[in-house]
């Protein structure tokens, strides 16, 4: 029971409380580069999710056999292997999406988020916890990618996952699918998260002082 609870905690941490993008601000390059539509965000998110999960499992399984001195190299080899797997699988199964994401799939290797989780979590925790963590972080990253992609797609083309939302007369906000739109949208979303956090902290403080009084 306790273990279930802990694993669930790890999962929620990654998805929301310590969201890799909105809270830790990691993995920005792949995030911004491919999120000009929700579907691209989803594909990239799933690809990263798969790499993260696979690498976490391997690293966590073999952690005691990997000497400290070469661990980073081993992690990279493991990650690169999974990325290559994803790359080829996508190219075979979904060539259209593979073309869209183009060169950014291989760049998952350089995503600090994944290497960071190997180093900070998978190499120090049990398989079970590592899987929970990978699920959480992967889902958190996926969530960020999809929401950013959705915002940019809704405003940028007036569609979501390809379904038109506003009718034929919609005036698309082209900037949203262009690079500046990526920067600005993410900036505004981060601001929003900061603001939420601040509000929460305020309420927490208030509750704490009220408790103190009682």
């Amino acid at each position, binding site marked *: 029971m306790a273990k279930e609870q802990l694993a669930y905690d790890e999962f929620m941490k990654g998805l929301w409380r310590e969201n890799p993008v909105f809270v830790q601000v990691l993995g920005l*390059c*792949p995030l911004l580069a491919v999120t000009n539509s929700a579907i691209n965000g989803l594909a990239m998110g799933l690809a990263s999710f798969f790499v993260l999960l696979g690498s976490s499992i391997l690293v966590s399984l073999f952690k005691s056999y990997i000497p400290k001195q070469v661990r980073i190299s081993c992690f990279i080899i493991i990650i*690169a292997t999974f990325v290559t797997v994803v790359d*080829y699988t996508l190219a075979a199964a979904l060539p259209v999406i593979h073309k869209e994401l183009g060169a950014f799939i*291989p*760049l998952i290797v350089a995503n600090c988020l994944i*290497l960071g989780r190997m180093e900070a979590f998978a190499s120090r925790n049990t398989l079970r916890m590592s899987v929970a963590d990978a699920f959480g972080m992967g889902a958190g990253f996926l969530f960020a990618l999809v929401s950013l992609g959705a915002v940019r797609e809704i405003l940028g083309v007036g569609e979501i996952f390809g379904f038109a939302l506003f009718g034929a007369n919609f005036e698309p906000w082209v900037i949203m699918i262009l690079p500046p739109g990526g920067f600005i949208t993410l900036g505004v979303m981060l601001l929003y998260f*900061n603001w939420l956090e601040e509000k929460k902290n305020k309420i927490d403080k208030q509750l704490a002082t009220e408790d103190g009084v009682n």
Partner: protein
Amino acid sequence: MGDLGWIFISTLLINNFVLAYFLGLCPFLGVSNKLEVSFRLGLATIFVMVVTALCAWFLNTYVLIHAPYLRLISFIVVIASVVQLIEMAIKKTSPTLFRALGIFLPLITTNCAILGLAIFATNKGYGLWEGLVYALGAGMGFTLAIVLMAGMRQEVEKVNAMPKLIRGFAFNLIISGILSMAFMGFAGLFSSS
């Protein structure tokens, strides 16, 4: 505009690695708070990019035509090792240069702009010279962007009227957005004339 010239201008200004491709955001957002450091990081990046272009060309020409599936892994491993070797060589031969640039080298090696350079250059089918010019343009474009960014951030730091909530990553992203918007002015440069 000759082909090499256009490759250079295009990567430097129009398709700036940071502002148009979102590559190298970590150092761009993380290290751009001090002008001096940013500039040196930029120089180190130019250097590593040129080395990367050489490695990529070598691998593409002599290794990967036989084993294309090793592309990703070999890029990473070879670039990282070569940079490491160069780092050691610099440390031995020129401690001043090492102090100026060397400390950044390991930081850059794991960065997506470097890997991106190798992969893009390969996808575009660039040869040796094209690859080198591409690397130079990308590195200098990165330097330009990070130096401008650092100048602005140093200035903004001094504004105490700025709401605390806004400081930090969110704000840096918005500055980058405006800068990226300004760089859009270079779009189409030398393509219509």
